[in-house]
């Protein structure tokens, strides 16, 4: 099993370590619900070093970026981050990624579990196009600060250069922790930052964030709460809302198809876009105490009409929530739905994603012209 550079620090901090996508990662340090609330109300510190970091550089970087993912690379401005997909030739989802436009190319942050499959495609296309690819996953670690106090904590860490960033933008800058790439992004539904930090400085950054943020309520947060946070925020997770058997239209990911380039899967996407999908992703509130989980069947009129993609007890809402992929005809007919949770069948009500969205800070109060 692989370990991130922060592995022994996690153990010191009392983490419960589990296998995730080939890495030994903290699922929690003390309590998933408490860590969830930390991110909603204060600031959580996450190790995301298991995720893949791949750079395209040189004159053919643009061609490669346009070939392997679904956001129009040419239209991307320097300093911007965008959500995009990597697709198979059949138009199903190989991975979901964040792509950043850097001075000399592009940075892709990819899922740990898909890293080798993604790189296989990337290297093959790079060879064909004569582009240069650098896998920075080992040399550079990744730490996220997420929560309403994240910007204050950034200031205290001497990273104030990044706090004026707009959402989905990034900036490079020097710091006590080496040269960083900081983006205002996250996977929690809160304000926050994701920091690419040189491997040798990652431990110092993680510790400093906990120490400097102590009175801000900072605590280390595991992947357990990351999952409940992202689901409340309506953000998809590879292997749940999408995978190799699902096309973007069936996963409500049409918004990530933002390229007219000849990307892998684009002919199939053009064909699929001509008709409505047979099944669609849907958000559900689920009755009862039992938690709906991936694979549980969705039932309408005694028939199995879909399957749960993700489910959890929402700590913020105090009720059970799920995403499910359901036959479009059933959704369009507004049929009554239930979820089969082992021996029980419990009611479910359709709702709209996200389950939770933060109250955004209001702008400065304008002085009245009295």
């Amino acid at each position, binding site marked *: 099993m692989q370990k991130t550079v922060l592995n022994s620090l996690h153990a010191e901090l009392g983490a419960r370590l589990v296998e995730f996508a080939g890495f030994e990662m903290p*699922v*929690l340090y003390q*309590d*998933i*619900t408490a860590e969830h609330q930390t991110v909603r109300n204060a600031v959580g510190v996450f190790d995301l070093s298991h995720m893949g970091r791949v750079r395209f550089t040189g004159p053919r970087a643009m061609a490669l970026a346009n070939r392997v993912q679904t956001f129009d690379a040419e239209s991307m401005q320097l300093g911007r981050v965008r959500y995009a997909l990597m697709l198979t030739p059949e138009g199903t989802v190989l991975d979901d990624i964040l792509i950043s436009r850097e001075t000399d190319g592009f940075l892709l942050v990819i899922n740990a579990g898909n890293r080798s499959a993604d790189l296989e495609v990337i290297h093959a296309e790079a060879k064909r196009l004569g582009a240069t690819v650098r896998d920075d996953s080992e040399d550079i670690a990744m730490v996220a600060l997420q929560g309403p106090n994240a910007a204050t904590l950034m200031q205290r860490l001497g990273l104030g250069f990044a706090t004026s960033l707009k959402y989905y933008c990034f900036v490079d800058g020097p710091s006590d922790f080496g040269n960083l790439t900081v983006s205002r992004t996250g996977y929690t539904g809160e304000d926050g930052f994701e920091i690419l930090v040189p491997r040798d400085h990652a431990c110092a950054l993680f510790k400093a964030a906990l120490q400097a943020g102590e009175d801000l309520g900072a605590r280390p947060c595991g992947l*357990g709460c990351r999952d*409940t946070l992202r689901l409340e925020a309506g953000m998809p997770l590879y292997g749940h809302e999408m995978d190799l058997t699902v096309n973007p239209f069936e996963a409500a990911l049409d918004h990530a198809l933002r390229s007219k380039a000849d990307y892998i899967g684009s002919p199939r996407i053009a064909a699929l876009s001509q008709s409505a999908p047979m099944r669609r992703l849907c958000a559900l509130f689920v009755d009862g*105490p*039992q*938690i709906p*989980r991936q694979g549980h069947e969705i039932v309408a009129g005694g028939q199995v009409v879909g399957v749960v993609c993700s489910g*959890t*007890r929402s700590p913020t809402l105090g009720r059970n929530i799920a995403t499910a992929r359901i036959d479009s005809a059933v959704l369009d007919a507004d049929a009554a739905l239930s979820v089969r949770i*082992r*021996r029980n069948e419990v009611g479910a009500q359709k709702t709209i994603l996200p389950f939770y969205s933060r109250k955004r800070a209001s702008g400065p109060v304008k002085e009245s012209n009295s």
Partner: protein
Amino acid sequence: MKMPQDLKYSEHDEWIRLDADGIHAWVGITAPAVEALSDLVFLDLPEVGKEIQQGEVFGEIESVKAVADLYAPMTGEVVGRNDALIDDLSMLKKDPYGDGWMLKIRVEKRIEADKLMKADAYALRLKSNPDHH
């Protein structure tokens, strides 16, 4: 870790307290098991009158993290069920060996108790295998 001395323990982290009458017993799950599950949301127990079999699944307990099966430490007929616990799972954390009991059973084969662990053996097993949850 300190385990109550008067209980017997199963490899699946259930405990059983044999009553002095030699007929009845109470069944629950151990504090380390409760700790490992964390954030409990649901408990499913058999109704009074049902039969449970040593080593077989008799119910399930669910946390935010996962669902775990409950295994019968001994064979017997369910004569009592802790419905207050089903309504308030926090009792499992507060008092796993007392108010957090799950079932009261009428024991059929007392000899089955020989297959269970004493407190020291169970504590030793946890120590040698802390990540078995």
